[in-house]
């Protein structure tokens, strides 16, 4: 089995030290998780392995032979393959052709041999357990999960004779692969990873998702502030220990204590129907944090989208005695704030100043009677909110694209906070957010609730729901199956409830 060893890796960007004696070893036949908060040095380490950055110092050996990295070709020659969450695919071309983008097409009489092309693709997909994917289907018709499987399968294509000296790929680096996958897709990906591992490949798996890591990894390496903290055997470690490695904080500290809230409802929902939803009903009290749990596709996010008016809907929705508006514009005006799940595509304006994203829903309040903008009031509001959410940015003019995922999320929270909303809708509020920023966000949600805002959190992170909410509504195929108080609720019990009758 190949054995990659990285020791004493150093890398600085100007005065900022990204890696400080980082270390990692990866063997064939294992899944090795790499964890750490944002800024811990995970991406720098991966970029060095991929040949996109040069290390300042350190040693990288493959089977005790020093490895010269420094270019993407060198990484490829060493047998490394990298799978990012944002895949580069050509939607209009077929699956088989996408797989052959960096491989020569099989030819016959100098022309493309289409049957051979499809057969090679089908064979590689089959090896991965992805035989359900049609090699001639257009790539664009596939879901994100299947697209990722296609990308993995492409690495299994036999190398052509002309490149016979190139070693077969053996090390796969997955960077947050499940970020945009549904539960079923993730399950298929995990099965494919298991097959790669059984074939002797080493998998380096970078993820924020503790559940996945605990289910998948054989060993876990934690980095903090660019340094190697610990490498632990999954079988003999625990979540608490890993979180402690990452943060220096114990997990119990992650969630602020529950508080009591009033019983008076701020939002009542009766017979809510929308695409993917039917007959949903619940009350949300002032100051309550209500969780929405359920398997992927059960309708967690759809409830929030229907409430903000993004989905066409029917039903009786009452906000503090008045009917809830059925457009996003109307809902914001009534004091409903929304933090969408797709942060980059539905939340922020990446290329524009972060202050603009924060001020956008509140422009009407920030202008004179004649619609003239009060620039100073806007700047003051943005500064105040950025401080409230402990945003790390150079100033209101910094483009959102330059912020980390956690800080982008804080931008969206900042704008939801403005003007003390009556109801706050949060869809996967800590998705792609590092542990430190998570803590800030949980504290913020709590503070909002304490000040009387009703909060609804849809999340796939069960620990988060139990830690944060007073009650959790469990969704099953577009309906509410049960509403459980979190007092004394265990993760196992909640998961069982999510699986419902299926489980």
């Amino acid at each position, binding site marked *: 089995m190949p054995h990659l060893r990285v020791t004493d890796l150093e890398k600085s960007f100007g005065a900022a030290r990204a890696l400080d004696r980082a270390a990692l070893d990866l063997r064939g036949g294992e899944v090795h998780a790499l964890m750490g908060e944002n800024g811990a040095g995970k991406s720098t380490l991966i970029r060095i392995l991929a040949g996109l950055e040069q290390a300042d110092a350190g040693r990288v050996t493959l089977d005790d032979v020093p490895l010269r990295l420094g270019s993407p070709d060198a990484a490829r020659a060493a047998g490394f393959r990298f799978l990012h969450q944002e895949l580069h695919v050509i939607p209009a071309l077929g699956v088989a052709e996408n797989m052959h983008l960096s491989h020569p097409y099989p030819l016959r009489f100098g022309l493309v041999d289409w049957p051979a092309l499809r057969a090679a693709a089908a064979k590689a997909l089959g090896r991965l357990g992805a035989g359900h994917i049609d090699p001639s289907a257009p790539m664009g018709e596939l879901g994100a999960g299947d697209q990722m499987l296609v990308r993995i399968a492409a690495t299994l294509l036999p190398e052509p004779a002309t490149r016979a000296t190139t070693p077969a790929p053996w090390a796969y680096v997955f960077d947050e692969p499940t970020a945009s996958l549904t539960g079923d897709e993730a399950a298929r990906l995990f099965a494919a990873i298991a097959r790669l591992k059984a074939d002797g490949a080493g998998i380096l798996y970078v993820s924020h998702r503790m559940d996945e890591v605990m289910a998948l990894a054989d060993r876990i390496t934690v980095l903090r502030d660019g340094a190697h903290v610990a490498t632990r055997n999954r079988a003999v470690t625990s979540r608490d220990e890993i979180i402690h490695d990452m943060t220096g904080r114990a997990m119990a500290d992650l969630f602020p204590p529950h508080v009591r809230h009033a019983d008076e409802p701020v939002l009542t929902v009766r017979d809510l129907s929308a695409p993917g939803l039917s007959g949903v009903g619940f009350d949300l009290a002032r100051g309550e944090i209500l969780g929405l749990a359920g398997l992927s596709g059960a309708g967690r996010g759809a409830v929030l989208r229907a409430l*903000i008016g*993004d989905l066409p809907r029917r039903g009786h929705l009452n906000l503090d005695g008045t009917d809830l508006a059925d*457009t*996003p*514009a*109307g*809902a*914001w*005006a009534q004091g409903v704030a*929304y933090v*969408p799940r797709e942060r980059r*595509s*539905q*939340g*922020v*304006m*990446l*290329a*524009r*100043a972060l202050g*603009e*994203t924060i*001020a*956008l*829903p509140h*422009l*009407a309040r*920030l*202008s004179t009677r*004649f*619609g*003239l*903008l009060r620039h100073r009031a806007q700047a003051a509001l943005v500064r105040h909110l950025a401080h409230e959410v402990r945003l790390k940015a150079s100033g209101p003019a910094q483009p959102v*694209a330059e912020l980390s995922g956690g800080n982008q999320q804080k931008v969206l929270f900042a*704008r939801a906070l403005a003007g003390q909303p009556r109801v706050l809708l949060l869809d996967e509020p800590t998705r792609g957010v590092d542990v430190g920023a998570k803590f800030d966000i949980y504290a913020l949600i709590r503070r909002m609730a304490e000040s009387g805002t009703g909060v609804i959190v849809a999340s796939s992170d069960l620990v988060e729901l139990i830690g944060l909410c007073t009650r959790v509504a469990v969704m099953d195929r577009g309906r509410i199956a049960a509403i459980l108080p979190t007092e004394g609720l265990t993760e196992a019990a909640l998961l069982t409830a999510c699986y419902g009758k299926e489980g």
Partner: protein
Amino acid sequence: MAAFVKRYGSLFGMLAIVVVFWIALPDTFMTARNLLNISQQVAMLTVVAVTMTLVMVTGDFDLSVGSMASLAAVVAAVLFTRDWPLGAALAVALAAGVAGGIANGFLVAVLGILPFVATLATLTMFSGAAFVFSGGKTIFGRDIPQALSDFARAGLPLGTAGDKPLLLPALTLVALGMTALVWLLLEQTTYGRRLYAIGGNAEAARMAGVRVRLLRLSAFAVTGFGASLAGLMYMARVASANPVQGDGLMLSAIAAVFLGMTVTRDGQPHVLATVAGVLTLGVLDNGLTQLQVDSYVRQVLVGAIILAAVSSSAIGRKALRLR
């Protein structure tokens, strides 16, 4: 250093063009009279380009402005031949511009047709309508009210140069007024900030409570108004109307907005930057004509300068990638 060049390179390029003409034409270029001439020559283009800025802020664009300018002039001229009063005919022509803009906005914002396709289609329709109304003829002479051409030659007295009076041309004043109005709208009102938000990320803007469809539609309406106003200014300047006379405004207006984008910090369209783009085009036409550069060579040069400016600032590519 490289960042500095990227940020200010094309601004210096624009200034350098002015300096080159100043040196090459020491007696005639940098004179009050010539500069006022340029301001009048670009007045129509200014109106089209600053209102085009509005739709380009939201990430759309409008190919139909040129033929709308022709159509508006033809509509007004045909009404003059039927003895309509001056004000009423102009009002109907401007209303036609707004209606055309709303039609564009409806196709793009409500029906979701790509702006390129939708406005290419309406370009053809407006142009056809202009031919139908005019019967393909140029309307001129006594049919065009004297008051209009008098207006195009009038101006605010600024003093004298030599023995002749200097006038700030009326057409320049209209262009300045329109520029101020759109600047106010885009930079100082919530309306404008919402348009920029739509350009930044339309889906996110909608989720944040912005009425995306309505605002995109309204931007097209303003652009249609600007196009028809420019068409009427054109008619006043040439004291005639024919169904193709404004067609050239479209490409120049889009070029001016792109040139302007190369001088802005965020790489987005802004009104004052667009005016800088318009002036660059106007100065090039004026200076190269005075230097007796062949009119076809002049076209090639103008295109080359647009390419050079856009590529040195790398705006074109960056804006595309982030959208």
